[in-house]
């Protein structure tokens, strides 16, 4: 492959012109999920955790971030919730997303200073950062025009033209997702090698989680009795994780590996009581929203009246181009 080929592929992967809807919709759904994850968390209680339990993660240790007082944590959480709502709706988007990211780093990070670092919410911080740096407010955003309304007539038409600006943030979340799953696969190989598969360790995990967690089903115990099932399942997990980078270059791989990974995480929840709810925010980005929205426009025009119209984008393309 020549350098120019490679550069062309890079350019197409990251910056092929795309409409703003998929990115805008992902922003709405992502921040809605953030509100469901964290809207009900009482962050104030962390101020009362005995000091012996405070074991700061490097972010807090090196930046000397303190645990704020209970009242201040509650105030900060309230501001955060408001900024998440505004980010979801697309109101004062840039400042509200910066605020939600900065406070999010502190509040989500704070929870990891008491003995256990949760991995799944780390990705949320990175996705929030990516969205903050993107133009995700050019669709599905409330703007003050003559009235508050979804972006159809409010966002200047020129900003709704197809652009690489609407593609790279989604692609970056793809890359992030890939890094996470590939890292998990590599860690298994580095720590345990093929022994992770050949030792029937999966059966051990399935049984032990009934002692350490509370799985909603006893299917894991049943499955663990059949090595003929657990060996291939363990191999499948490692292969799935290590082959996930294929999703970046192959649409066929995406169609198989992304749903397979999602289902394997659902299986972890059902069999072991380990739920990866935060990963839903990552899977959002793998949904082909452009195609779904286009199909919705054709079949149910009344339901999608708030979408930026094709005519609007066509005018923009004709008038300004990309």
């Amino acid at each position, binding site marked *: 492959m020549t350098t120019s080929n490679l550069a062309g592929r890079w350019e197409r992967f*990251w*910056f092929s012109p795309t409409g703003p809807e998929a990115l805008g919709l992902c922003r709405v759904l992502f921040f809605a999920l953030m509100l469901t994850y964290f809207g009900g968390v009482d962050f104030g*209680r962390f101020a*009362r*955790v*005995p*000091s*012996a*339990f405070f*074991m700061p*993660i*490097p*972010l807090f240790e090196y930046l000397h971030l303190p645990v704020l007082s209970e009242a201040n944590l509650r105030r900060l959480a309230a501001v955060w919730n408001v900024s998440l709502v505004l980010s979801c709706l697309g109101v004062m988007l840039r400042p509200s997303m910066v605020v939600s990211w900065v406070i999010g*780093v502190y509040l989500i*990070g704070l929870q*990891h200073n*008491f*003995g*256990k*670092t949760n*991995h799944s919410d*780390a*990705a949320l911080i*990175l996705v929030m950062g*990516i969205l903050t*740096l993107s133009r995700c407010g050019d669709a599905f955003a409330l703007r003050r025009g003559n009235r508050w309304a979804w972006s159809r007539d409010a966002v200047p038409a020129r900003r709704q033209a197809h*652009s*690489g*600006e609407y593609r*790279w943030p989604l692609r*970056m979340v793809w*890359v*992030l997702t890939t*890094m*996470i*799953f590939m*890292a*998990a696969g*590599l*860690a*298994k190989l*580095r*720590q*345990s090698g093929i*022994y*992770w598969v050949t030792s*029937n*360790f999966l*059966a*051990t*995990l399935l*049984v*032990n989680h*009934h*002692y*350490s*967690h509370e799985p909603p089903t*006893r299917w894991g*115990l049943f499955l*663990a009795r059949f090595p003929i099932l657990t060996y291939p399942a363990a191999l499948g997990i490692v292969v799935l994780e290590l082959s996930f980078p294929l999703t970046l270059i192959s649409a066929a791989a995406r169609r198989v590996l992304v749903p397979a990974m999602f289902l394997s995480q659902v299986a972890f929840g059902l069999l072991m009581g380990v739920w990866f709810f935060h990963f839903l925010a990552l899977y959002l980005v793998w949904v082909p929203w452009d195609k779904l929205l286009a199909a919705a426009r054709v079949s149910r025009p009344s339901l999608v009246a708030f979408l930026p119209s094709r005519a609007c984008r066509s005018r923009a393309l004709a008038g300004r181009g990309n």
Partner: protein
Amino acid sequence: MTAPRKRFVGILVGVLVSSHMACVALKGEVWPFCNYAMYSSVFPGGKWSTLKLVGVAAGDGGSEVELAEDQLPVTDLVMGFALRRLVRDGRVDEAAAQYLQWHLDERRRNGSKWRALRAVRVYRLHWAVNTAADNVDSPTDRELLVEATLEEGA
């Protein structure tokens, strides 16, 4: 898109990928960059052990009471990990004493809804794991690591 903007995106991609790869290579993590090594180390089956904080009720002969999750400063799962680190660092005595004071303070805050404690104990619980998991509520063995007691008049 302008060329500088594309370069900026390229730098972001580089930071994202290299940070994760560094975590994988160094087997470490600097949250929010992680190596996602959960469940990567194989351990033998057939046994399981964990650390547990148990209360000792005040005024009824010192019976032990289970501490529900709302009676812990962190979730039950996090408490297990925290106790493991505290035992490793030799600070579990201090943590147990602080917990007891925390329980007393929280009990005052919530109008004495919780049972009063006169002590807490940290146990290491061991199970001989069986594939039916029918002994989850009855550990095979338990080992007392620490007991912290309220001072008179507290």
